[in-house]
């Protein structure tokens, strides 16, 4: 069995670039930046229901970071001429997204918050979070493909 059928270079270089983005923000501002707060921060522009109030101080950087991520991927696609449209079914994107948006706010972190920021800070709670979402996601993805849902 091949571990990396598509090669390894683009994964490694892409990962280093993602890490560089995090380091760049830390160098200039001292902020430990994760992506999941973008959604709550954007919502807090329109409503202060419940704990959305807590984004008052971090709102502007969270939104700037999210918009930067969209723009960076867009610039990369322009420069390399590689745009992409998924064939994953729409209900999967929507209902999966719903659980992702809910879960990351309850857990206070995602693949970048717990994964990149937390693990690189040797945070034990983040390690627990990463092992939890990785194993649950693997089980879920296997279950769905075994039910014959493709893609």
């Amino acid at each position, binding site marked *: 069995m091949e571990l*990396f059928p598509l090669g390894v270079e683009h994964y490694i270089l892409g990962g280093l670039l993602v890490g560089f983005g995090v380091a760049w923000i830390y160098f200039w501002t001292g902020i430990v930046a994760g992506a999941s707060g973008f959604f709550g921060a954007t919502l807090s522009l329109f409503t202060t229901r419940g704990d959305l109030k807590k984004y008052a101080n971090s709102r502007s950087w969270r939104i700037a970071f999210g918009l930067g991520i969209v723009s960076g991927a867009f610039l990369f696609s322009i420069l390399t001429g590689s745009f992409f449209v998924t064939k994953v079914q729409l209900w999967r994107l929507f209902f999966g997204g719903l659980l992702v948006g809910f879960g990351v706010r309850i857990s206070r972190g995602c693949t970048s918050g717990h994964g990149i920021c937390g693990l690189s800070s040797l945070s034990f709670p983040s390690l627990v979070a990463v092992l*939890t979402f990785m194993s649950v996601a693997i089980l*879920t993805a296997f279950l769905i493909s075994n039910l014959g849902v493709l893609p």
Partner: protein
Amino acid sequence: MRSLAIYSGGLFFGAGLALSAMAKPEVVLSFLQLKDLGLLLVMGGAVLIAMIAYKALPRIMRRPALGGKFNHYSRSLDKRVVLGAAIFGIGWGVSGLCPGAALASVGVGNYPVLLGIAGMFAGAYAASFLSD
């Protein structure tokens, strides 16, 4: 100035996600089905650089280049962290989308992912009913 620094950091972050193909749900789902372990290399590379930055920068600079102070990541372990991570994991396994990769996916022109983003906003809103 600070917003510009953060936006430009997002540019690198998003370009990295596009380069590493994490903006393609298919590639993430093939990792989750253990057909291609590339996601571990992406995460490993990112963690390596971030770890160096978090350790080294506060030692070689008194404060961040634009002022303020160096923050340190801290989370306490409680059942919310684990329960939320499990719910996120189900969603990730269903869709192949996580927040950063979904935003990058918008940038690569993957317009169906807007439905996933809409779901994330709705989910984030629902979570505010459960504030502690």
